[in-house]
């Protein structure tokens, strides 16, 4: 896949923290990656790994306080949005970066009709738009996400629609503004498998047809495999591994990625053969000194416990944060 040209999104050393009574917790620590057109980047991680904070940081929706951007840069087509003020961000959000969320129904205002919310968004971003024109755009957008009967949907309130429908509407609302980049934060976690497939297919089609770069946050390897082109593995606030989906899934280089893939239930295996990661995810209030995964890692050596490995490239489009990645001990 060609990643020619400037990346749409360039994240460098992003650090986001939260102030708590017990001190600052760095939930996202030194995250860097690029996103090009046609890319679907999956950020995968367990709860507490920092993936959602990363997603919200990218659109600057971390509430400050208690949140704080501790450093790094987020360049959207060359502009570092971390330097933008709130007013400027308002034109970045929606118009440049679109985002859909985990809980689709709750992401729509229960007090307004779908029509109102769609048109409100459209007219906000393009004040020259007439109501009729906005309605027209809204209708087309709804049709694109698979609603044949748009009139009924437009007149509905969110509570009258199913979760899957709400997610499609959320998507329509975002896509109608024609963003340069879409972030989907666990868009299918709350949905049944059938609906999940439907949403993923919509995203995949859109990416294929228009080259819209997408970042999808998930904890499900199945989702990664289904639509992502690239994958970024997070653990304990650190990015642990990045690469093309096929590469990472077939030959993971980080022990965590390896263990993660192994622990996914495989219908072809007997239950006794399931391997699992022992121990528990780290507490970010007092993270391990060295590699975040070291306490649970089978192969950890003294160095792993002492210093945090660097984020470095290991070949074409592959990055990893492991002391052992090159020695091959990781395999």
């Amino acid at each position, binding site marked *: 896949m060609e990643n020619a040209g400037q990346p749409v999104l360039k994240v460098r050393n992003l650090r986001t923290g939260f102030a708590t009574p017990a001190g600052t917790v760095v939930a996202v620590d030194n995250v860097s990656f690029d996103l090009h057109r046609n890319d679907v980047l999956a950020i995968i991680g*367990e*709860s507490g790994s920092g993936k959602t904070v990363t997603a919200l940081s990218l659109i600057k929706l971390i509430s400050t306080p208690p949140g704080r951007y501790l450093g790094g840069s987020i360049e959207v087509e060359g502009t570092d949005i971390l330097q933008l003020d709130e007013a400027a961000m308002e034109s970045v959000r929606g118009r440049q970066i679109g985002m859909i969320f985990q809980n689709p129904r709750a992401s729509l205002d229960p007090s307004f009709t779908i029509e109102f919310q769609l048109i409100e968004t459209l007219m906000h971003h393009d004040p020259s738009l007439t109501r009729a024109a906005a309605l027209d755009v809204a209708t087309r957008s709804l049709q694109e996400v698979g609603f044949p009967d748009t009139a009924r949907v437009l007149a509905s309130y969110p509570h009258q*629609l*199913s*979760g*899957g*429908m709400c997610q499609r509407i959320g998507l329509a609302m975002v896509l109608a503004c024609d963003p340069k980049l879409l972030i989907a934060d666990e868009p299918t976690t709350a949905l*049944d*498998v*059938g*609906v*999940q*497939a*439907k949403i*993923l*297919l919509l995203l*995949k089609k859109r990416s294929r047809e228009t080259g819209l770069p997408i970042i999808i946050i998930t*904890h*499900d*390897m*199945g*989702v990664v*495999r*289904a639509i992502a082109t690239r994958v970024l593995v997070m653990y304990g606030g650190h990015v642990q591994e990045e690469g093309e989906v*096929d590469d990472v*899934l077939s030959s993971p280089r980080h022990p965590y990625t390896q*263990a*993660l*893939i192994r*622990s*996914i*239930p*495989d*219908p072809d*295996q*007997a*239950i*006794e053969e*399931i*391997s*699992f*990661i*022992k121990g*528990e*995810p780290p507490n970010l209030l007092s993270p391990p000194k060295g590699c975040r995964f070291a306490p649970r890692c089978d192969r950890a050596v003294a160095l792993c416990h002492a210093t945090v490995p660097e984020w470095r490239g290991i070949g074409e489009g592959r990055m990893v944060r492991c002391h052992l990645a090159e020695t091959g001990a990781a395999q």
Partner: protein
Amino acid sequence: MNAQKNLIDVRGVSKTFTVKSGTFFRKAAASTKAVNNVSLTIRKGEILGCVGGSGSGKSTLGRMIMRLIEPDDGAILFDGTDLRTLSPEAMRQYRKRLQIVFQDPLQSLNPRRTVAENIARPLMNFGTSPAVANRRVDELLELVGLDPRQSYRYPHEYSGGQCQRIAIARALALEPEFLFLDEPVSALDVSIQAQILNLLSELQKKLDLTFLFVSHDLKIVKQFCDRTVVMYRGCMLETGTSEEVYRDPKHPFTRDFLGTVLHVRKDSRWEQAAERAEDLESATRQSEAGCIYAGTCADRFQRCREAAPALTEIEGARHVACHLYSQPKQ
């Protein structure tokens, strides 16, 4: 099939939930058939998987077996005794033999009781002395792989996976024969899921337990259970060994359901399934009389809309509720 070996025999149970409105002039505002005339058997020592989407009635079914929800009709035989006919006190005694593990481990533990108190509670309910109960708590914690010395802590000091271990320890305290596992791993991270499944599997063998394992994840059910029951909107559509159901789904619903499952291995079957996948929550039932899946089914024909198919036996232990199979095969 030897009837004597059936530990649990559910016969034609149904449950309708009615949402009532009004304070004084109560009227049914809406009613949902959560479970519709379901019969199944669980043999001793077996792990029965029950799989279905949200609203399929799988949890309600399990709770009815536990008599945490009273069925509207039908019978639930446990070791030959109809639990529904038991007096409250007799039922209380029976509770020793049936236990439950919940989806959300933290919520299922009393947050203001220590782990030891939580685990000891069922023992105390049956008159065990505190000293004996305490020793037993330690044993149980060891059994599920937790440090008994930490048992004075509160549940929220433990992670989700650990809480689920505690919940399992508590469920085992009364040495039950049967455990109803209500999506015991779906709230846990992938890396922990495997731990718990592994533990459960070990315990099952070691203690000769019988499980009813409810899940929405066909992959796990396939891997974990001996037999699988597929449910959809309160109806049982298909049963068979997990292997058979997974490899060769008979019911169109099972096929569609299986189709949308995402795999880690490269596999694009889901894309075709997704094109047709119904929005489960919104799909309207075509007619009261017909098959419950007729509205979405790709293979439907005239009869599907007219009569609901009965669960029919095909190929030995397999049962399917589908008109495709209700006639003698061509």
